[in-house]
């Protein structure tokens, strides 16, 4: 029965191998370029005027990045704080449905996942910003608006992943719990959610990654103010939106161009941190 790999298989194998290899090379190259740029930037400007600075005036040689780091953190934080409970309640509701209805919900959510982010930005501009303006009396362009737009944006992904996590819980466990006299609510709380806490954490990390990386939709509603935000309804900026805004102000060759590398590297580091976290949770989950 033992047989040599066929010519076709061998070819496919190599294609895959070459593909994987070049991806690795590409990844390392991107990292190296960003790192190189960051090193140049730090040597030229020091850390006080960049990573640890509060004032961002690129034309005056001041590149404080704290406002953007704060912006990124707060905006992603709001997004997760709003999206996780909603996604979880949706998932909990869906799990008790018949398989056919679950499939329908899945299809709808997959459709929503495919909506381009500009559409969410536009929705934010026409609905969220005016709503916050009406409630707060401020302009409405704010970290809160960005966080809410992101929340809605990651909601489909997060719900899908949560539904997948909850429906992967084995039927025998669920029936075992019910057979011990657990009510459906007890089964949900003590068994299903307890068993899927790592997959749910994983889903949240993936959603956080998407929130942290999103640019266009956030830029449209956040207001782009470069000062340290003083509240949730204050306008602000994130690492990604500021890269977008200043890409044309600081093209290669201009003094300070490498601050963009620095910002990109910070994002990359954050994402990498999350991947590591993800791996940890994967290893911990049963």
């Amino acid at each position, binding site marked *: 029965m033992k047989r040599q790999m066929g010519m076709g298989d061998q070819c496919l194998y190599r294609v895959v191998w*070459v593909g994987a290899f070049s991806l690795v090379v590409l990844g390392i190259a991107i990292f190296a370029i960003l790192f190189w740029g960051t090193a140049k930037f730090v040597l030229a400007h020091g850390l006080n005027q960049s990573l640890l600075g509060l004032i961002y005036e690129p034309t005056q040689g001041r590149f404080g990045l704290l406002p953007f780091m704060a912006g990124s953190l707060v905006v992603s934080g709001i997004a997760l704080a709003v999206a996780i409970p909603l996604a979880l309640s949706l998932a909990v509701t869906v799990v008790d449905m018949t398989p056919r209805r679950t499939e329908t919900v899945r299809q709808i959510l997959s459709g929503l996942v495919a909506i381009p982010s500009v559409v969410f930005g536009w929705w934010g501009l026409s609905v969220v910003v005016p709503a916050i303006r009406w409630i707060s009396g401020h302009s409405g362009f704010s970290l809160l608006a960005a966080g809410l737009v992101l929340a809605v944006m990651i909601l489909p992904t997060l719900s899908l992943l949560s539904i997948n996590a909850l429906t992967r819980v084995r039927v025998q466990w669920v029936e075992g719990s019910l057979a011990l006299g657990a009510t459906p609510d007890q089964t949900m709380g003590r068994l299903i959610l307890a068993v899927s806490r790592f997959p749910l954490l994983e889903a949240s990390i993936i959603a956080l990654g998407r929130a942290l990386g999103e640019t266009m939709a956030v830029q449209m509603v956040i*207001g782009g*103010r*470069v000062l340290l935000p003083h509240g949730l309804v204050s*306008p602000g900026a994130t690492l990604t939106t500021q890269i977008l805004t*200043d*890409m044309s102000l600081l093209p*290669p060759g201009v003094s300070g161009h490498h601050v963009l590398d620095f910002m990109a590297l910070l994002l990359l580091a954050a994402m990498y941190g999350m991947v590591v976290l993800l791996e940890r949770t994967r290893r911990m989950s049963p």
Partner: protein
Amino acid sequence: MKRIGIIGMLWGLLIATGFYPARGTLGVLRVAHHVSIVGATSLMPLTKRFVPEWEQKHPGVVVSIAAGGSWAGILAVTEGHADIGMADLIPPSRLAVRLVGYPAGRLAVAFIANNKDGVKEVSESQLMQLLLGRIPNWRSIGGRDEPVIVVSRPLSSGARAMIDSFLPPPGLSADAIIQLSNGAVLKTVRDTPGAIGYVEWRPGMGGVTMLGIGHHAFDTTHLATWPYFTKPTFYVHKRASDLVKNLAQALSQAPAKTDFGIYRGHVITPKGLP
């Protein structure tokens, strides 16, 4: 094994593109005549409208157009990454000496306020105080009781450069809301009570109050006397080919430019023309 070689080559090529300096086109695929244009978003619509017409008259020439802002346009041309840079700001002299500019005319910078602000005209000093962020409420200059919200373009924009050039330090209010394009500024000011901003005017803009400044009313039929404007210009490198210069000149004189709000001020002969 042959196939592997080809696949390897393809991947190599793909990776190489990743490292190839941005020139708008791939070195190995460079056609005989390729002209790349980069720069100000305010000139994009005009360029996009005009270029196909020009390409028809110059068979074999392919033109690529990319946005990126005035600054990026000027730098790309001085660095040789692009052939034509669209810009509505004046390049610093250290760069200007290497460039030839083909001015298209003027783009009026209109100061726009939300219709609910209740102010139709302001003095020039009031305008400056507003933009500096020193007038917190419209009430204090005779408008409604609405907090002033300044809406601006980012530092890379030509219109912003023009505003910064006439504001005293520390310049435009740091509290300003930043929107990336003319259109976004217009929409933001239109939708946000209390907002004031500025746009490069073009026909069709509405839904906001076009502020009169001092004794100048913003009258779209008499823009020639409006004192706030940028000078959209097509820049090429001094040593650019005749073909490139021809295109830049043709662009700057395109008849369609009035449709995009570009009008004639006094004539400026481009410096350094042969």
